[in-house]
């Protein structure tokens, strides 16, 4: 059904104060994985956490609606792609699986 060449989309939803969670997630990411910030995880955009999240070859995405809902600007100290809910669905198709962290 799918020719997904990309591997795991890590979906994180807790705020960056949950450092162990972020650390666990990062330690399991490999090339061809990606990270999606949703819900409270969008706060990582305005914390030092975003630098730690920026591993080469591992794109970081953030759900635009969640970013706006939390009053954050669509800017970040490290490369982040802001995506719509539709694009979230598309990412789930492109990646072989999702792995949620919360």
């Amino acid at each position, binding site marked *: 059904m799918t020719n997904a060449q990309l591997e795991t989309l890590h979906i994180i939803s807790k705020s960056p104060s949950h450092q162990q969670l972020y650390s666990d997630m990062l*330690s399991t990411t*490999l090339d061809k994985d990606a990270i999606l910030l949703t819900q409270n995880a969008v706060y990582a955009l305005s914390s030092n956490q975003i630098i730690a999240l920026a591993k080469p070859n591992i794109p970081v995405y953030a759900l635009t609606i969640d970013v706006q809902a939390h009053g954050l600007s669509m800017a970040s100290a490290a490369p982040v792609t802001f995506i719509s809910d539709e694009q979230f669905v598309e990412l789930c198709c492109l990646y072989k*699986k999702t*792995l949620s*962290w919360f």
Partner: protein
Amino acid sequence: MNKNLLLIFRHPPFSGSNNRDTLDIALACSAFDIPVSLVFLNDGILQLHKNQESHLLQQKSLINNLNALAMYDIEDYYVLEDSLADYQITTQDLSLNCKVINGEQLALLIRTFNTVINL
């Protein structure tokens, strides 16, 4: 579709229903012939610690359920090396016979599953 399932345990015992809920998923999926593997990280390794006396907290222990996993064809268990070191625990202290893996091996292990649940 050939599915396999990796379940991740990150919570200590008696701290909410996450571990019990994850274990219940393991049993149900195994009953549907989905190969199930378990991995214990960080506080999750504490769930395996021998000598728990849950009755002192009026809590049900999951140790018996964990020990019965083999009867349900669930015999593939992993524990993270760094977590054992952090808690100064050895495999002798654990009630399940787990393979010890490092972080990189965990990342590669995750790659081999098409479904991962991490409550």
